[in-house]
């Protein structure tokens, strides 16, 4: 990969974010490693409770403490460890070098301020422009994210906009200070598919023109396939598979990834039954011993129940956390249906 020669923008090492609750310690993120290179989109995919959002909040320094805490690990951003920074130092980076957009734009926008006030606030704080200049810049930003009649829109309030428009405003706000990294946490989940298509296209074109990196957090494999260069699959606070997007979809090596891909209906081929992954995600207060997927994995045996597998290089640039990934490979070759069509 060409990436190898590039400087890493983000380098997360052995990150552990725990929540200390009355019932016990919730290991929301439990020892993950990944990196983001300049100009690329890293997708993080997983189901609710897998730790993908906590990962992004950890990078932003927005984990509520207490009860949450980064218990271990480093988050290097251009070589600086964000976990060691003070609140004041972190504020300079947040919104300036690293920006974030969320799933529900309505809850992230202040209902009593106009769109223009909210975008220009960030510009005034981080770029030190006057109010008038900042408003002008806001209009420019709204234009860039494809909002019609931006001169009028800056005087409107969030409730006057549709969901898709609000998400565009969020993006405009996030990009107003030319961040190097944009973290997008399920940015299209609350939107309709035709609007989702608009937003994904916008993000792709802005990424190209700004040369920024994107960390895309989603549960939707379709969105991942659409926008990512590389992908990390998370399950129960750990990364279980990590590789480039084409390899992931062509040759998933973890039984969980394989299961996820087979549990979604495909548009181009009809099947009678979906191959569902049995059971449910284990309770984070009471994770099983050994591999955390062993309660649902059809391949789980002996060692899987006692020892936790390490993440290893299964191939060049393809990491997987599974004792039996080689067996899965054999089974895939022989076309064995790994997830039985159970009733």
């Amino acid at each position, binding site marked *: 990969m060409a990436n190898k020669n590039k400087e890493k923008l983000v380098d997360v090492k052995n990150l552990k974010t725990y929540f200390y609750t009355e019932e016990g310690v919730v290991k929301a993120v439990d020892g993950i490693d990944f990196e983001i290179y300049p100009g690329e989109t890293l997708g993080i995919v997983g189901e609710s409770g897998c730790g993908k959002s906590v990962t992004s909040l950890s990078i932003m320094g927005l984990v509520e403490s207490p009860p949450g805490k980064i218990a271990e690990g480093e988050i290097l951003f251009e070589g600086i460890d964000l976990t060691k920074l003070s609140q004041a130092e972190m504020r300079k980076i947040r919104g300036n070098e690293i920006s974030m957009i969320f799933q529900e734009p309505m809850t992230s926008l202040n209902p009593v301020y106009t769109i223009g006030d909210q975008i220009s606030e960030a510009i005034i704080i981080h770029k030190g422009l006057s109010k008038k200049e900042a408003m002008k810049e806001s209009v420019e930003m709204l234009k860039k994210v494809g909002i019609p009649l931006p001169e009028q829109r800056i005087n409107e309030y969030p409730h006057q906009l549709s969901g898709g428009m609000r998400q565009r405003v969020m993006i405009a706000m996030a990009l107003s200070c030319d961040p190097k990294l944009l973290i997008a946490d399920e940015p299209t989940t609350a939107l309709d598919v035709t609007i*989702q298509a608009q937003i994904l*296209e916008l993000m792709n074109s802005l990424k190209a023109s700004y040369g920024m990196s994107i960390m895309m957090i989603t*549960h*939707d494999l379709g969105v*991942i396939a659409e926008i990512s260069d590389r992908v990390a699959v998370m399950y129960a606070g750990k990364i279980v598979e990590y590789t480039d997007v084409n390899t992931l979809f062509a040759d998933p090596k973890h039984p969980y990834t394989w299961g996820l891909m087979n*549990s979604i209906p495909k*548009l181009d081929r009809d*099947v009678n039954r979906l191959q*569902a992954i049995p059971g449910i995600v284990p309770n984070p207060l009471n994770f099983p011993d050994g591999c955390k997927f062993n309660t649902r994995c059809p391949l789980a045996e002996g060692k899987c129940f006692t020892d936790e597998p390490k993440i290893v290089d299964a191939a060049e640039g393809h990491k997987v956390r599974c004792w039996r990934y080689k067996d899965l490979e054999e089974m895939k070759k022989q076309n064995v249906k790994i997830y039985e069509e159970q009733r």
Partner: protein
Amino acid sequence: MAEKLLEVNNLKKYFPVKAGIFKKTVAYVKAVDDVSFFVNKGETLGLVGESGCGKSTTGRTILRLLEATAGEVIFEGKDVLSLNKEDLRNIRRDMQIIFQDPYASLNPRMTVADIVGEPIDIHNLAKNKKERNEKVKDILERVGLGSEYMRRYPHEFSGGQRQRIGVARALAVDPKLIIADEPVSALDVSIQAQVINLLQDLQKDFGLTYLFIAHDLSVVKHISDRIAVMYLGKIVEMADKTELFDDPMHPYTQSLLSAIPEADPTKKKERIILEGDVPSPVDPPSGCRFHPRCPKAFDKCSVEEPVFKDYGDNHFAACHLLEE
């Protein structure tokens, strides 16, 4: 010839918009505006569309959870909209609904046995408590929940399990038609597949007919026999699912299908990106409601409303382009 179980003719549901101190009606939200379709016995009709298109309102109006403004709903030859209270209660035994949000649709103070047992009590389907509990146990097992869960409360269950409870409650009265309103949208993908498989198994076992309302086109394609596409209170296209996906006639259907992100990075789809947002149903566009966003609109589209008609093999559509 397939037998029609449900027939909906020219159904309308308008919600008044009230304003001023005297709460005068100043306008109407035309949530469902002249919708006609049918569902054959034993099949699944998928009803798709984006938020605000009126798909859920259609489902609720059929069951008279909302009273229709105009139109007909014929279920097994009976006009549901003109039934009196008692006849309505009786017919609801045959028509049940499953809701989207498994967290909000179950009473948190009732045990699972009572939630599932309530419809049995209402319709007097059990002679005594023992028989009722036997029935509840049986149904819970059919939806993949053991009888050990009977004494528990909804908060003790995961989303997928709660949706199974919702399914069990609908099944308790042995219905013929189930209206499933976004039954898997709130669930994680791996759990979604479990619930979809369950719904399909139950359909086979009990000979159920489904009206499956959803916004996720891949899910709808998987489970449906036929699909109706709604836009702003109207059905714009309805056809057999393979037909609809292989040969979509309406420009809205075409763009909707092209917008679905597919879990295959090697596939670069030719996207038809629609401009703008769905207009307000209070003041829908003149002529064809899709014309302000339609990439193929021409003069006639803003003036005259296209007729919804059969273009052969039960492939219905409403578009002026098709008439040319």
